[in-house]
């Protein structure tokens, strides 16, 4: 095994796990504030909210990318510098980001909806530091994504990497689902980071013009959600690409092949996902109505290829498989289940008529925490568990598998159910306290705190075990 590949992946995973623990503690503290268990004050609450959102989006994106880099390197040589630049930029970007939030008190939320950064309280330098942090992260991640795309294109043409020849029944050159999904996801990642680049440039122009230039809020909102929504979707697909590669082998089944319908579904996904973000602007009635309808249509068609191909394949792989379950397989299998459940929550919210009474209520964090906390995170933890088994000195103890898995599932499910109930009861999201109109939010937050704590304990045990089994390899 390539030593660089092993050590760099290990370093990424250790970093991800540590940052994830920190970000969970931020989130838990926010729920404690909403539950009236601590007194942070609104400014500190929103500082935590901004840091929590960005760290979570960033950390699971790089976890997905690290998985892709590792598996790709088993197919062919991938340049090292993409991963190195991305790692340095990620560390530097996170330091500047936390400086902008905790020191300069920038609290504009993770998608910093224009023009809020200019109106937020806190130090004057805050918005600039925040934009610099995002620029550093964006540059590192864009380069990494381009390096991975280039390494795929060294072996395949664009048409081959998109498996178009499989659509016409040809099987050569064979393109594995892993290559296809990685390529599709990396194109999506590159597109949304480019949108973020445009967004940041427009911010910088306005900032440097000292008020003589102002941007169009509707355009900025479209750019923001094209970037934010697409990034979160694509990072899920990065995790799925690795699942396609590893999961059948865990079940002792032949590797998944790229059939015509697998090729068709992921090509369709590539296009559909780019238009689904419109659902974030349903309540902006000045947005052209055609875009709103496209948003709902695309949001409802988006899960079809995934459901029909991925979920069906995972279920048929496990059915009467005489499976020997380990932590990685459990996390993959049930991660797909929670991804499907979160998807149901998402498409119900993506009905415009429902969104009219669910938008910006707790239904939103309910569904995205379901497919992130219990879906995407499970995919990356599954990869990390498989990786630890590959390189670690010892296997995880069976008793520990039960403890970790139970804590993550019970903690995660209880935590998101409190959010779903909040959505059903019209409780708003992103508030530091609940007024008398929506006072049910307090009891729901108290319930959520208990379950979030269980999830945190599960993650602490997971991280300690992973570190004990693997960290020594960094220095070997």
């Amino acid at each position, binding site marked *: 095994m390539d030593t660089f590949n092993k050590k760099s992946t290990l370093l990424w995973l250790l970093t991800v796990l540590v940052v994830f623990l920190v970000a969970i503690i931020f989130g838990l503290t926010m729920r404690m504030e909403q539950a009236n268990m601590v007194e942070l004050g609104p400014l500190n609450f929103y500082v935590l909210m901004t840091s929590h959102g960005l760290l979570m989006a960033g950390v699971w994106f790089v976890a997905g990318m690290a998985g892709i880099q590792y598996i790709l390197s088993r197919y062919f040589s991938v340049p090292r510098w993409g991963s190195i630049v991305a790692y340095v930029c990620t560390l530097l970007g996170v330091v500047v980001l936390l400086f902008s939030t905790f020191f300069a008190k920038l609290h504009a939320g993770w998608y910093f909806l224009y023009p*809020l950064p200019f109106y937020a*309280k806190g130090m004057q330098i805050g918005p600039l530091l925040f934009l610099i942090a995002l620029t550093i992260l964006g540059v590192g991640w864009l380069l990494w994504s381009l390096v991975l795309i280039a390494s795929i294109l060294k072996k395949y043409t664009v048409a081959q990497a998109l498996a178009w020849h499989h659509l016409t029944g040809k099987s050569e050159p064979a393109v594995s689902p892993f290559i296809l999904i990685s390529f599709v996801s990396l194109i999506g990642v590159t597109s949304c980071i480019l949108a973020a680049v445009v967004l940041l440039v427009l911010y910088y122009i306005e900032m440097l013009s000292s008020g003589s230039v102002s941007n169009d809020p509707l355009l900025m909102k479209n750019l923001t959600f094209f970037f934010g929504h697409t990034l979160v979707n694509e990072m899920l697909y990065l995790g799925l690409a690795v699942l396609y590669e590893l999961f059948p082998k865990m079940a002792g089944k032949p590797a998944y092949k790229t059939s015509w319908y697998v090729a068709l579904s992921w090509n369709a996904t590539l296009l559909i996902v780019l238009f689904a973000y419109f659902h974030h602007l349903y309540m902006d*009635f*000045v947005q052209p109505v055609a875009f709103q309808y496209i948003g709902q249509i695309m949001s409802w068609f988006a899960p*079809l290829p995934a459901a029909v191909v991925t979920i069906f394949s995972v279920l048929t792989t496990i059915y009467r498989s*005489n499976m020997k379950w380990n932590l990685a397989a459990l996390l993959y299998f049930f991660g797909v289940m929670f991804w*499907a459940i979160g998807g149901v929550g998402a498409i119900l919210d993506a009905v415009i008529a429902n969104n009219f*009474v669910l938008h910006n209520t707790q239904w939103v964090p309910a569904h995205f925490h379901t497919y992130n906390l219990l879906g995407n995170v499970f995919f990356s933890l599954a990869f990390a568990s498989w990786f630890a088994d590959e390189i670690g000195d010892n296997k995880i103890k069976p008793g520990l598998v039960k403890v970790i898995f139970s804590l993550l599932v019970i903690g995660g499910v209880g935590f998101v159910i409190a959010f779903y109930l909040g959505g059903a009861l019209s409780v708003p999201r992103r508030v530091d306290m609940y007024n008398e*109109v*929506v006072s049910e939010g307090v009891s729901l937050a108290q319930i959520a705190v208990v379950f979030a704590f269980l999830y945190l304990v599960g993650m602490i045990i997971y991280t300690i075990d992973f570190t004990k089994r693997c960290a020594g390899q960094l220095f070997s």
Partner: protein
Amino acid sequence: MTIQKEVFLVFTVMFLIIVSVFFLVFLSSVKSGELQNVNHKRAIFFFIAFGTVLLVLGISLPKSPYFLYSKEEPAQKVFVVAKQFSFSISKYPINTDDDFNMSAGAEVTVPVNGVIEFNVSSKDVNHGFSLYKEGVLQAQVQAMPGYVNRLRWKFTESGTYDILCLEYCGVAHAAMAATIKVE
């Protein structure tokens, strides 16, 4: 039952179906069986899912709020301007800072069962304009700087409705609220 609770009910049913399917398959994994060609079942599953998507789109798209009461004359136009961290609501256009200050905090009364056209905008950042009746969200629209979002709504019950900001707008977002009276 509110729309929110209906959605929650549908979600719960789907949740239970998905969990049951995964658990049944999980339980089956202790056995071993021959590999089967499942493409036929996959095709059936696809067409059922495809049909369901078309059905939902066909039923739900026409219920979108963009053309609510568009063929009726509004009984009352109401102008709403949001600004960190208050709403200014008036039956007259709010164009200047003076207009804003005069109407900030004042309660407007509108007729029950008449179409009300809310013209909603913002003077600074994005806000959310939402109407709550006894803690239940009835309708909402965004308040965006530089644009006017028009929401038509008919109040079918008299009483006092709460207005909350539903788009995160800064440090006192949670306290940004107002009321409107319906008679």
